[in-house]
């Protein structure tokens, strides 16, 4: 059994017919349920449920307080390399893009780590492009060894690994994995990934599960919103998270709902996902899986981010740059995408407090057990 079996189950699902068949009573009935099934979740993602956002928000706020309290975990990404062999139409690191490429040395990683950790951040997410030649697993392992000296929690957002490779990085000190399927629709996936190892849909789809088998503590997944109709991708992301949580109950599962941002070489064929839709997606996730982590990045602007806090967000990035060496270097690389919320860690800390929430900088530490 893989999540692929669930994907296939809904591959030919008639979404439009299902949405057309819903009544206001159906939405209210689902809103009153404690435990929701797959189609209850889809009901909350329907256009009709979009008219019940306030009702959904009230319940989402209560469930979030119950499960997470008034606390928001802060982390920051660190881009350590942007060499990439893939041709993904939506990404600035696409091999065809003529951008400045860079890979940090261990000394440079240490310099970035020192700088970031001085800002009080204890959770770091390291990112690379996909190039096993330029940034092999051994390079990632070396980077983790350096970062362990400065951070309590290390997550990776790199190319998909085998189960043994996940074990290797976990044993070195990684406790979190972020990997986005980008788009669950297999046909679109094939279309937007023109060439490179990323064309292998199944290998990427099963990556979070391989990490769970390797005993990772937390997994963050999601679809890149804009590559397909958002409701379908939101539905598949939620089902994927639910599949993982049911099968690996002791792993903390999270979802990010990233929307495509402008970047070098952007394509025009992007589906619109407006703020209302993003909010509906976040609320539906919270109601479907009250214990799910939900991460919001600096892709979103500060107004939206600040207002999403009480609706179920549990993790936020802060003090972000998407350039390799972007925190300390003058000759940094080009960025993966443009960020919207450029506030400092200090500013974000203060805004969270002003919203009546507690910014959490540390929520885990290496306890020496793998």
């Amino acid at each position, binding site marked *: 059994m893989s999540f692929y079996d669930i994907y296939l189950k809904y591959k030919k699902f008639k979404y439009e017919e299902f949405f057309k068949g819903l009544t206001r009573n159906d939405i209210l009935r689902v809103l009153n349920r404690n435990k929701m099934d797959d189609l209850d979740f889809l009901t909350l993602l329907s256009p009709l449920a979009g008219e019940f956002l306030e009702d959904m928000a009230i319940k989402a706020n209560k469930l979030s*307080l*119950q*499960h*997470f*309290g*008034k*606390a928001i975990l802060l982390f920051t990404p660190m881009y350590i390399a942007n060499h990439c062999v893939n041709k993904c139409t939506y990404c600035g690191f696409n091999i065809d893009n003529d951008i400045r490429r860079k890979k940090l040395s261990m000394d440079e990683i240490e310099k970035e780590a020192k700088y970031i950790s001085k800002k*009080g951040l*204890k959770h770091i997410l390291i990112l690379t492009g996909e190039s096993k030649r330029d940034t092999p697993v051994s390079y990632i392992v070396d980077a983790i060894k350096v970062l362990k000296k400065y951070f*309590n929690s290390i997550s990776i957002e790199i190319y998909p690994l085998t189960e043994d490779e996940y074990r290797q990085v976990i044993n070195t000190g990684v406790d979190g994995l972020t990997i986005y399927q980008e788009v669950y629709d297999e046909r679109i996936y094939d279309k937007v990934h023109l060439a490179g190892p990323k064309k292998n849909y199944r290998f990427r789809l099963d990556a979070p599960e391989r990490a769970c088998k390797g005993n990772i*503590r937390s997994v963050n997944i999601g679809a890149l919103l804009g590559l397909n109709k958002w409701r379908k991708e939101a539905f598949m992301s939620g089902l994927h998270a639910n599949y993982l*949580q049911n099968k690996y*109950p*002791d*792993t*903390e*599962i999270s979802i990010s709902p990233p929307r495509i941002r402008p970047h070098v070489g952007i394509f025009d064929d992007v589906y619109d996902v407006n703020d209302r839709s993003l909010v509906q997606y976040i609320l539906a996730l919270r109601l479907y899986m009250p*214990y799910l982590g939900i991460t919001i990045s600096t892709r979103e602007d500060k107004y939206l981010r600040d207002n999403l806090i009480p609706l179920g967000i549990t993790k936020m990035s802060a003090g972000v740059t998407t350039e390799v060496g972007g925190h300390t270097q003058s000759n940094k690389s080009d960025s993966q995408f443009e960020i919207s919320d450029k506030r400092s860690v200090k500013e974000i800390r203060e805004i969270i*407090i002003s919203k*009546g*929430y*507690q*910014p*959490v*900088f*540390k*929520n*885990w*530490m290496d*306890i*020496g*057990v793998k």
Partner: protein
Amino acid sequence: MDKLSIGGCNLDSRLLIGTGKFPNKDIIPKVVNECGTQVVTMALRRVDLDSKNDNLLDYIPKNCTLLPNTSGARNALEAVRIAKLARAMGCGNWVKIEVISDNKYLLPDNQETIKATEILAKEGFIVLPYMSPDLMAAKRLVEAGAKAVMPLGAPIGTNRGIRTKELIQILIDEIDIPIIVDAGIGKPSDASEAMEMGAEAVLVNTAIATSNDPINMAKAFSMAVKAGRLAYTSKLGRKTRFAKASSPLTGFLNEGEE
């Protein structure tokens, strides 16, 4: 009011509080002062000794006993590691064992909890294990060296009250070390109820931390805990389903006695 004795330590307050869900840390010392709690639990994973502004320990008044918990532990081994780290970080030798391998309901794993309790009690920790109310598991925790047993009233954070009442009552009746009801207590009357049942103490976090006025809510809980304890020690009147008639059915037996 009579004192609560845990591991040789006598406490005036029977309300323990958690620190995980408050809107800001500044409010924690005010809550502690208002409710008079003497034992404060905190997740070790949230403790950051290096932080100037955000070290949780700086917000817990020094006269409180720290009760670090092993939140995040998925098995006994991880709980033991976290407890030892807590002691090494200067949090004392009390520990609340939390072993949770179910991320959905956050229900404790009694079997792994018993294992961790045994190891840590042998190493001199004052162990207070959080558990699902089960008599056999509680007995094993006592054998393993626990100094109190902390059954849940309802899943963490749910504020649903003492839903496991019958099972907790059995623990109160049968277990000789203090029973502290932890998790699920949603309002002061739930705390009173637990105390009236004979629980030695209660632990509250969500209901105080996520209320609109945590300081006054802490005060309300403190009063409720005291009321419940006083009612328990004063022996509650007997409850009956039937009214007792003034002309009793067996009254004829007394006729002609005088």
